[in-house]
């Protein structure tokens, strides 16, 4: 998927969301007005009957469209199965098809788009993933607050990989301002990405602040991400002149994962690796 494809998907999604909102409002209007007018018997009995029939058919249309919209959830589940089997290409295909079909519910559409962004991010196609995340954030207003938060974290990750640290920090700003509102799972997602952004921007004091809490959370991450967070914290401590903590954190990072494996994806770790090599040579 190219950046242009992603922009096109967002454009289509925006149009669908607008259409679904108009359809929902229209159906709701017919149901409410029809029922009210019929109940209050404000018009002739014949019209009352027609209004009631219209309201009934609008209600039925709503049910049918809801059932059709549920297909998107099925697609999202199917895509998740493809993802767990490592078939990113099939997951992408399934989700792209689902996004092009009509859904009455904005939330379902945004969920599918989010899953697609995750797949595209997994393919290391950060430009396209960032476009999709941007699209979701601009459309999510009000509904699915958790989805919006996760998308912001994903967007920041993409921006970091694209070398745009300021945009990453900007994407994270609303989350950092309301840290207490984040669930533990979201905090765990945020930690390595926020640290990367801070280190890249040279905000070492902020990165090393509240160290015990950060280490405690890092311990809950999977091995590669735990190693990454420890290495980043180690670098922040070293920059702050705290060599004791920096060495300890680096030792822990090496126990979690081979730092040389992470270096390809995170050039920020170069300094930590150099420090590790020096420490090894001193030991040797």
């Amino acid at each position: 998927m190219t950046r242009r494809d992603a922009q096109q998907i967002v454009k289509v999604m925006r149009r669908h969301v607008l259409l679904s909102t108009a359809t929902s409002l229209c159906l709701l209007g017919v149901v409410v007005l029809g029922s009210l007018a019929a109940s209050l018997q404000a018009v002739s009995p014949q019209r009352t009957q027609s209004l009631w029939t219209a309201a009934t058919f609008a209600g039925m249309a709503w049910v049918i469209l809801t059932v059709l919209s549920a297909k998107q959830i099925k697609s999202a589940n199917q895509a998740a199965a493809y993802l767990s089997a490592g078939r990113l290409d099939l997951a992408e295909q399934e989700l792209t098809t689902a996004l092009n079909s009509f859904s009455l519910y904005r939330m379902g559409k945004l969920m599918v788009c989010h899953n697609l962004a995750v797949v595209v991010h997994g393919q290391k196609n950060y430009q396209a993933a960032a476009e999709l995340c941007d699209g979701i954030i601009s459309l999510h207003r009000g509904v699915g607050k958790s989805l919006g938060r996760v998308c912001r974290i994903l967007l920041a990750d993409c921006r970091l990989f694209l070398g745009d640290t300021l945009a990453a920090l900007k994407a994270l700003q609303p989350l950092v301002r309301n840290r207490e509102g984040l669930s533990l799972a979201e905090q765990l997602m945020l930690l390595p990405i926020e640290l990367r952004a801070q280190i890249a921007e040279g905000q070492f004091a902020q990165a090393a602040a509240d160290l015990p809490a950060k280490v405690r959370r890092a311990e809950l991450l999977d091995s590669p991400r735990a190693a990454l967070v420890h290495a980043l914290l180690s670098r922040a401590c070293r920059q702050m002149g705290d060599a004791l903590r920096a060495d300890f954190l680096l030792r822990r990072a090496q126990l979690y994962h081979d730092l040389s494996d992470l270096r390809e994806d995170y050039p920020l770790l170069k300094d930590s690796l150099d420090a590790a090599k020096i420490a090894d040579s001193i030991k040797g």
Partner: protein
Amino acid sequence: MNLLDSDAIEASFAASQPRRRSLFGLQSLMMATVVCVVFLAMAGPRFGVPADAGLILPPIVIGAALGIGHRASRRRKACRDAVTRAWQHLQFDEARPALDALGPIMRGPITSESDRGQAYMLMAGAAERLGRFDAAVQIYETLLIQRVGDIAQLQEAQIRLAAAKVRNDELTDAVTLIGRLAQVPMPPPLKAAFDLVHLFQQVFMGHHADAIQHEEEQRALFRKYLSTKAAYGYGLLAAAMHYLGRIPDASRLWRDATTLMRSEKLVREYPLLAPVSLAYPAVEYPI
């Protein structure tokens, strides 16, 4: 009644069972709503239906159906929220608050099998942290007998049942179960969890030479998939080395274990590591 008492566990499994009858009832109600609305809208006074009934009844029936649907979705959300809260507490070893979060949802049916399975896995985890291994064994066994949860949860339950049985001194059962699980192909993360349980059983029963037979492979597997919990594996390997008299190896492994996790926590989780913690210095935490 304590949530971890045997009778309470049994009662909770019975109460949280999704009711097929209520699901059937809900489907019937939805169907009846559609039929009623269409019939009343189409029929009118021609079929002897009073005109007022045609106007008043459908909104009431639709309102009732929407109300029931709304209640069901709220209940499901409450279950998910409670499971999430319990998971968060358990991540920080807060077993009591985790049980408090789970208590209310266990008293009624949990419609999603996956949520139900996860809730009981968390409850068993809390029981283990409180040292109630009998309760944990009962929960895992009931999960497996009633096949609650998805396949991954059931596989994990088997592995955790084996560990709980070792701790609960049901060694014969534990060895049989571990022997059976050793024959089952597993994805690597589960294999790492299983290897840890197997290692624990071997060290617990004094089979130290067997325990270190695949040390290198096990270390790599623990490191890759167990993250911080790899410290338990290193600690148990250190114990095996210690009893075999391989002091430098034991010291090295204990150093790795205590770099990842404080020695007090290692000993609290595996009391058999107490002699090792006395024999070798732990790494000091500057944080």
